[in-house]
């Protein structure tokens, strides 16, 4: 495994971190309070090539391998404090772009990918339902074939990017008697007859990444928008999750680095009992713990991405990376708050938001409990 960044990769990473610091953080406290998506920042990121990092150049992307992609996303997370915007970009990339790239017909790729890469089109994934979360394939949403269209009926919850999306990758069962083998993916466009949005889902963290319910009521989806074969939804989702789990938290590794540096700077500057608090061993221990968690998380991230670059399945490695990064992110944010004391609890210091943003990461893309179940199973248990 070669983890030496080339000059070109280093330049790109530095450029993205600087861009993010300069262009994406203004007005964040207010946007977080209002739960407001930064569409301008979204388009700026797209123009920088972020949305299309792993997408081949023929569709407007940069054609980067998985390792370079996560390295750049790590830099984005390092520079950009708007974790909600970064999450929206990741959801768009891993749960829509990559499934289209992996399972789409040439026509589907040509129709959707250039606009997804340019940021003109926003993607969302519609999988979870009121009664099927971790047991995702127990979904109630159905798709019945009528001539050359499918009629989708059902409701989806926790749809990230739901309120702002132009296209949804929706999962529905074409034959519930087949159980999970009937699950099929559909690219449902925003203006499809029968598609409607529920209320905006207000969240504890990642508030700048909008979320909503999505309803399908005899929603007409052309057969040409079926993604993959009928019944292929199970592997479509598994592949999408593999990408998502392996890469969605790359930015969180950058965020952890930012929290670590901020905590070190504060520990050197803040004095109590006549000396900087960084001289106290209990503060030092927290910072050392943050550093260890950061490096371990980064190593697992890079391993999963490197293996993905070798075109190997990474179900085990992605589950491990996702679980360790998410749990480490939360611990780093908790330590950062503790080191900052009462100031860390205030909105002004922008640590409390980091903690709120981190907390959801052990829930989405499969809970930590599900990741442990997958890891145990793949170890033969």
């Amino acid at each position, binding site marked *: 495994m070669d983890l030496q960044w080339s000059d070109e990769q280093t330049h790109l990473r530095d450029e993205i971190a600087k861009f993010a610091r300069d262009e994406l953080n203004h007005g964040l406290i207010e946007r977080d309070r209002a739960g407001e998506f930064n569409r301008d920042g979204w388009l700026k990121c797209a123009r920088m090539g972020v949305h299309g990092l792993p997408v081949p150049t023929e569709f407007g992307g940069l054609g980067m391998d998985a390792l370079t992609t996560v390295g750049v996303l790590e830099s984005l997370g390092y520079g950009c404090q708007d974790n909600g915007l970064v999450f929206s970009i990741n959801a768009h990339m891993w749960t829509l772009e990559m499934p289209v790239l992996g399972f789409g017909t040439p026509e589907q790729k040509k129709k959707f990918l250039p606009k997804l890469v340019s940021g003109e089109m926003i993607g969302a994934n519609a999988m979870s339902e009121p009664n099927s979360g971790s047991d995702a*394939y127990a979904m109630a949403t159905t798709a019945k074939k009528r001539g050359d269209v499918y009629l989708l009926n059902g409701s989806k919850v926790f749809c990230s990017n739901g309120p702002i999306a132009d296209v949804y990758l929706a999962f529905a069962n074409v034959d519930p008697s087949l159980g999970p083998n009937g699950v099929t993916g559909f690219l449902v466009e925003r203006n499809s007859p029968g598609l409607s949005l529920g209320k905006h889902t207000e969240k504890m963290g990642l508030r700048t990444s909008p979320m909503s319910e999505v309803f399908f009521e005899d929603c007409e989806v052309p057969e040409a928008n079926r993604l993959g074969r009928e019944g292929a939804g199970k592997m*479509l989702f598994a*592949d999408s999750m593999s990408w998502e789990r392996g890469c969605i938290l790359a930015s969180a590794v950058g965020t952890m680095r930012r929290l670590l540096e901020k905590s070190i700077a504060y520990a050197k500057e803040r004095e109590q009992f006549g000396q900087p608090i960084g001289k106290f061993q209990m503060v030092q221990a927290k910072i050392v713990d943050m550093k260890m968690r950061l490096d371990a998380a980064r190593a697992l991230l890079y391993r999963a991405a490197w293996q993905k670059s070798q075109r190997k399945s990474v179900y085990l490695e992605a589950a491990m990376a996702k679980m360790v990064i998410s749990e480490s992110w939360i611990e780093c944010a908790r330590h950062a708050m503790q080191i900052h004391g009462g100031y860390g609890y205030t909105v002004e210091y922008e640590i409390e938001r980091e903690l709120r943003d981190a907390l959801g990461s052990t829930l989405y893309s499969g809970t930590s409990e599900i990741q442990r179940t997958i890891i145990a199973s793949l170890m033969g248990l």
Partner: protein
Amino acid sequence: MERQAIVDKVKNYVLAQFLPGEDPNELTPDTPLMTTGILDSLATLKLVTFLEQEFNITVEAHEADAENLNTLDQIADLVSGKL
């Protein structure tokens, strides 16, 4: 590698991992695995990982469905096509 050798290796793996205690004679080359639920979603991931490591191949995500992995025969076809 001969096709029968692929079938035998995969059969042994499926018996050990997903059908412990089952009479090996009951698992024939055309016994349905996915459509009967022997290979559920997690078991499918395990099988794909096994195939990639054992035969040093890459199984694309879109290939890992009932059209390619439902029986030992189909799995052997998929694997032998990649060797």
